[in-house]
């Protein structure tokens, strides 16, 4: 068609991707009308598959990493992610906490080396795993890269690249055979929790977290169905298990934080990485939390928010979704560390010009990095809010206007003010 040829070559000054639709399209709905998708093209060039992969045999060290899709649930496409390379380098591919200092292209090229293998399994198969699933589960137990050998049915192809919650996913191909060549290195606690088939998944996740197991590792275990009581074990799509782990650990820390005394000042933390700004404000109050997220599309961009008061929430944060749980966890981790209670506002700003969907981990890791620094302390809310606004490019009023927690703090008085 002649029309599509015209659109084929975007004008010189148009950005390589459309700010407004790329976030929704994630590279597989061609909403911007440019075909082929510039993001996919970039991914292909970064991955450099043609030179690294010949034939259908894939021999390499998995980081270790497993992806369980959500499409078609309860029959999902799952399989290990295997790069066509061997060795220690693979470990970096599944460690987003080490990526903040890297550039977007570096992150994508690291991630796109991984080939996602797929085979369709019913989620209940985790109760009685087949050989393939068993090997995948064994891989997931490991904390270090493990040599493996996969035979593919087709050459890997880029289909969908990005998801708003999971790490970027490289090319994928249906899986024929998968075999581990090496013994996994399993931390003792992981072995204990996963082999206990009478232990509930929630308790298992909390135990592993307290033991200091990497969060990606716990997510992986939950996702391949290695946690929980035997008869209720199942495969969990990766994007769901990420938020599930954030929420399970968050709920437990929330319970602990409620018993702690309030902080005395207003604390402000802020950090920026990869086109994302995260600012965290702690207020001397009972625990309450609100996540405010804003995409900078222009002046006065829309701010979305979800909040909870001291009892926590029982329904899903359906506006901010995964980012809500991903930022609540670091805030609670910080409060547990300093043994104090506070009300927390998290301001997130995303600059679409410098951004591709990387997954919610970026908010979690930026927040964690910010919280390792010393807080800026203020004695009044107004001073603290001014400091917060220094980090943000969208006017602070737009955030405060929609914030339920802020309005509550401003209007609800405290009884002790009235006691003589």
């Amino acid at each position, binding site marked *: 068609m002649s029309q599509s040829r015209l659109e084929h070559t975007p004008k010189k000054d148009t950005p390589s991707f459309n700010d407004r639709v790329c976030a929704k399209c994630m590279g597989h709905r061609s909403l911007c009308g440019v075909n082929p998708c510039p993001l996919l093209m970039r991914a292909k060039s970064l991955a450099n598959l043609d030179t690294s992969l010949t034939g259908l045999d894939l021999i390499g060290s998995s980081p270790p990493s497993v992806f369980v899709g959500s499409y078609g649930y309860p029959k999902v496409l799952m399989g290990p992610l295997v790069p066509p390379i061997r060795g220690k380098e693979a470990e970096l591919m599944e460690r987003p906490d080490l990526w903040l200092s890297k550039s977007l292209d570096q992150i994508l090229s690291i991630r796109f080396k991984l080939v996602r293998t797929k085979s369709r399994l019913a989620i209940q198969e985790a109760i009685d795993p087949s050989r393939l699933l068993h090997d995948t589960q064994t891989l997931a137990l490991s904390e270090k890269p493990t040599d493996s050998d996969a035979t593919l049915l087709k050459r890997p192809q880029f289909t969908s690249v990005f998801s708003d919650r999971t790490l970027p996913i490289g090319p994928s191909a249906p899986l024929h055979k998968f075999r581990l060549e090496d013994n996994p290195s399993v931390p003792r606690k992981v072995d204990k929790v996963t082999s206990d088939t009478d232990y509930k998944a929630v308790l298992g996740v909390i135990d592993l977290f307290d033991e200091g197991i990497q969060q990606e590792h716990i997510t992986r275990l939950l996702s391949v169905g290695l946690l929980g009581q035997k008869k209720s074990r199942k495969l969990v799509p990766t994007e769901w298990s990420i938020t599930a782990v954030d929420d399970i650990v968050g709920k437990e820390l929330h319970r602990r934080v*409620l018993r702690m005394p309030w902080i005395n000042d207003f604390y402000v933390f802020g950090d920026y990485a990869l086109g994302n700004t995260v600012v965290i404000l702690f207020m001397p*109050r*009972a*625990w*309450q939390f609100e996540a405010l997220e804003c995409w900078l599309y222009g002046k006065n961009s829309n701010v979305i928010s979800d909040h909870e*008061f*001291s009892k926590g929430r029982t329904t899903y944060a359906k506006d901010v979704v995964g980012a809500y749980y991903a930022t609540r966890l670091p805030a609670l981790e910080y409060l547990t560390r300093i043994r104090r209670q506070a009300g927390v506002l998290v301001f997130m700003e995303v600059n679409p010009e410098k951004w591709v969907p990387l997954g919610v981990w970026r908010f979690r890791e930026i927040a964690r990095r910010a919280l390792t620094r010393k807080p800026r302390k203020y004695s009044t809310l107004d001073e603290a809010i001014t400091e917060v606004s220094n980090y943000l490019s969208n006017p602070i009023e737009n955030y405060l206007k929609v914030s339920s927690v802020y*309005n509550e703090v*401003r*209007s*609800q*008085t*405290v*009884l*002790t*003010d*009235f*006691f*003589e």
Partner: protein
Amino acid sequence: MFHATLDSSKTWKLIVDALATLLTETHFVITEKGMTLRQLDSSKAAMIALDLPAAIFQEYECDGEVEICLGVDELTKVSKRMAGDDKLVFTHNESESRFEIKMLGQAERRFSLQLLIPPEERTKQPSIKFDVQAELFADAFKQAVKDIGVVSTYLRINADDDTLTFLGDSDTGEAEVILRTGEESALCELQTKKKSSAMYAINYLADISKSMASDSVIIQFSSNKPIMMEFSIAEAGRISFILAPRVERR
């Protein structure tokens, strides 16, 4: 040493429900005169005060002062197991730091709860003077809170010499409930030292009004000051809630 019996498990359930509206931990102080509790909720915006004189218990024995700190979740779970006609026996076991609740009915059931460490500071009953005192049917108050809750997240109370008005508004609309003194009115008594108006959060009022177990409730407040809602339990006992006001944006 503390030992007491209570004939009606219903009374105890109502008490536990009232405590559970605001608290996650209960901190009872027990003396020979009776059982008391004064606690702020976690946001420090509301307070509950409970007074159970020794007279409401059938048997009552207490040497010195005993502090009992229990988790509300555990208390609620135990009280859910009580049958309507059970007789309750409370015992404090100092040596094992347990609080024992025995239910005597068709079977003798014993629950022994782990005591928590009591907080270092005790909340005192604040001495606040109020300009308005009103006594009204608890049901009328509950309905008023629900009515205003339809449109608003806060409730404004206005009082003058013979009327008590509940107001609320939001983007969606306004609501108003008017109570006048007089025969057949739900408002039994109204004393106004001066015209007053104050605003309170509806989510707190809704929770608090749910736990009102008596027929009538006494409400006291002043302009932009806390409100106290007081009702009796088991005749001689008393539960009061104090709630800090909302103010126009500071």
